[in-house]
Each structure stands twice: as structure tokens, then as C-alpha cells.
């Protein structure tokens, strides 16, 4: 991590947190990026709480301070309490999370740790619980959040810690 951001947006502020960040320096991709983010949250078959579980697992593994501190309001409204968030740790398999939630975390870990090493056992469990649409949704959202977290880390300026912040889906 670094104390100073590695890229700075000096354009006139718009009032939009994302557009005023360094990402606003590349408007050619930003609208598409934000549209994909909204589609992932609002239109896929997985619930907001399930999406948030995968997002937070990725945030902790990639160690993005911003991503770890954020809680999406739609996921909380969907029932994801801080008690359940606390279970998204390395010992999640022994937690009170549901079988579906544990498989979402196992898939996320596989993507992050060893994407080429998927076992037949985990594959069979995933296919037994999730539809094809759900598996593709899970895949795309994990890839999206991984890229977003790494983007924040790579651009630097990350504080050592932040308080938990509830936010709405950026527009």
C-alpha cells in the first residue's frame, strides 16, 4: 500500500464519488464499468445478500480496505447482518452459514487461490445446488469485484483502516 494516490483526477468535480475518483480519468470505460456493476447487483439470479458475501470474501482476500469497509444497503435489507458477515472468515466451513453461502465462499476462494485446480468434488457440489444462470452470475460478480478491489489497491492511497460504511449502489 502507499500513502499517496498514484493517479489523480483534476477534472472539475461532478459530485459523483466514482466519477470524481481517478476512475473518472477514463470516461470511455467508466460508464460501461458502472453499468456492469448495476447489472450484477440488480438483475442476476443471486440475491443481494449472496452477492455481498462473495464481494466481502474477495475484499478480505485481496485486502482492499475500501471494499472491506463498505456494506451495501440492499444486502443488509436482504438480511445480511454483521453477525453473518463475521462468519466470512477462513473458518467459514465450520460456521452457521447456509450450505449455499458456504459454496459461494468456496467458489470465491477457488477463483482467487487456484482457478485451474477445481476439484471434481467441489464442482459436483456446486452443480447440485446452483443453476447454470446462478453459476455464471457468481462467476461474473467474483471476477468483477476482484478486478475492482485490485484496481483500488493498485492505484494506491489506501488508508490502513476505515470504519464500516453503509452505501447505496453507485449510479
Amino acid at each position, binding site marked *: 500500500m502507499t500513502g499517496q494516490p498514484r493517479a489523480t483526477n483534476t477534472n472539475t468535480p461532478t459530485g459523483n464519488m466514482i466519477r470524481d475518483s481517478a476512475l473518472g480519468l477514463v470516461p470511455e470505460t467508466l460508464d*460501461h464499468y458502472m453499468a456492469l456493476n448495476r447489472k450484477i447487483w440488480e438483475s442476476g439470479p443471486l440475491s443481494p445478500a449472496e452477492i455481498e458475501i462473495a464481494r466481502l470474501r474477495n475484499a478480505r482476500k485481496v485486502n482492499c480496505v475500501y471494499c472491506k469497509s463498505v456494506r451495501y444497503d440492499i444486502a443488509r435489507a436482504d438480511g445480511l447482518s454483521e453477525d453473518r458477515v463475521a462468519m466470512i472468515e477462513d473458518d467459514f466451513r465450520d460456521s452457521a452459514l447456509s450450505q449455499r453461502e458456504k459454496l459461494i465462499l468456496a467458489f470465491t476462494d477457488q477463483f482467487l487461490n487456484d482457478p*485451474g485446480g*477445481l476439484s471434481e468434488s467441489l464442482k459436483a457440489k456446486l452443480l447440485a445446488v446452483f443453476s*447454470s444462470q446462478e453459476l455464471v452470475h457468481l462467476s461474473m460478480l467474483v471476477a468483477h469485484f476482484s*478486478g475492482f478491489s*485490485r*484496481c483500488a489497491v493498485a492505484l*494506491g492511497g489506501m488508508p490502513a483502516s476505515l470504519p464500516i460504511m453503509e452505501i447505496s449502489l453507485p449510479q
Partner: protein
Amino acid sequence: MVWVSSGNDRNATIRVLRDMAAIFDALYQSLWTQPHLPPEVLELCRLRLAQLHQCEVELQRHDCEIPTDKHNNLTHWTTHSSFSNAERACLAFTEVYAMDTQALTDELAAAVKSHFGDAGLVLLVEALGILDGMTRLSLLWQLPATTTQQTTYGLVL
């Protein structure tokens, strides 16, 4: 047919979610048409990611034409004469990004910015996030490697 869907390649797999596929396609294409980083440089970084992940299907993919000598000598980019300093700056950044994003340094970022500015650095990290993610999904979905790969622009090479 891959295990997650009835598709047998990336596009067919994502098309299980048709609306999301269209938005992802638009994002992916925008990486190759933006003015901040030449697509040839981005393709070198994409292929280097594929090499580091040992992902055959992504190595066979062609998103942008690059000279044969660069393609054939990409593993030797630090010393081979066909690579420019600008390309080396981006490839150095890509390698550290792939191995440990937390290990990226201000110096690696400054080297990219010296050639492509702040916007070029932002585009590179955005693109690496997407390209790294799709490479990981190609491995996780166990996409089959073939002799031809359809490009984003609908060309079969």
C-alpha cells in the same frame, strides 16, 4: 460444453445471462478502443497474464494484432530488442500485479505514467482487473483450448 453452462467458449458461457453479456461485451470492447493506452500494449499485457496463469485458451485468443517477434519473445520482454521502454513499463507493472497486487510500487506506477500519463495508468489497472478476472474464469470454467479463437470484434484468426 463447459461444466457451468451449455456453452463451449467464453462468450457462449456468459450469454446464459443475455443482458449481462451485452453490457460486459461493451465494457470489454471499450478497453480496446479507448485513447489512453494503445491496444497493442494492452494485448501484450493480456498475453503475459495468460502466460503467468498458464492459461492455454487465453494464449490462443487474439484481441489485437501484435508483431510476431513480440508474440514469440514475450517471455523475454525484459531483454528482447523488439520491446519498447513503454511496453516494458506496462509489462513490469502487469507481472507484479499478477503475482501480488499489494506489492506494486510507486516506481512501477510512475514508469507507466511517464509514457501514458495518469489516465493510461488508470486504464491499465482497470483493464488488468478485467483481463485477470476473465483469465481466471477461463481456467475455472475449464474452457477448452482450440486452434481458433473468436475475437471481440467477431473475427476468427
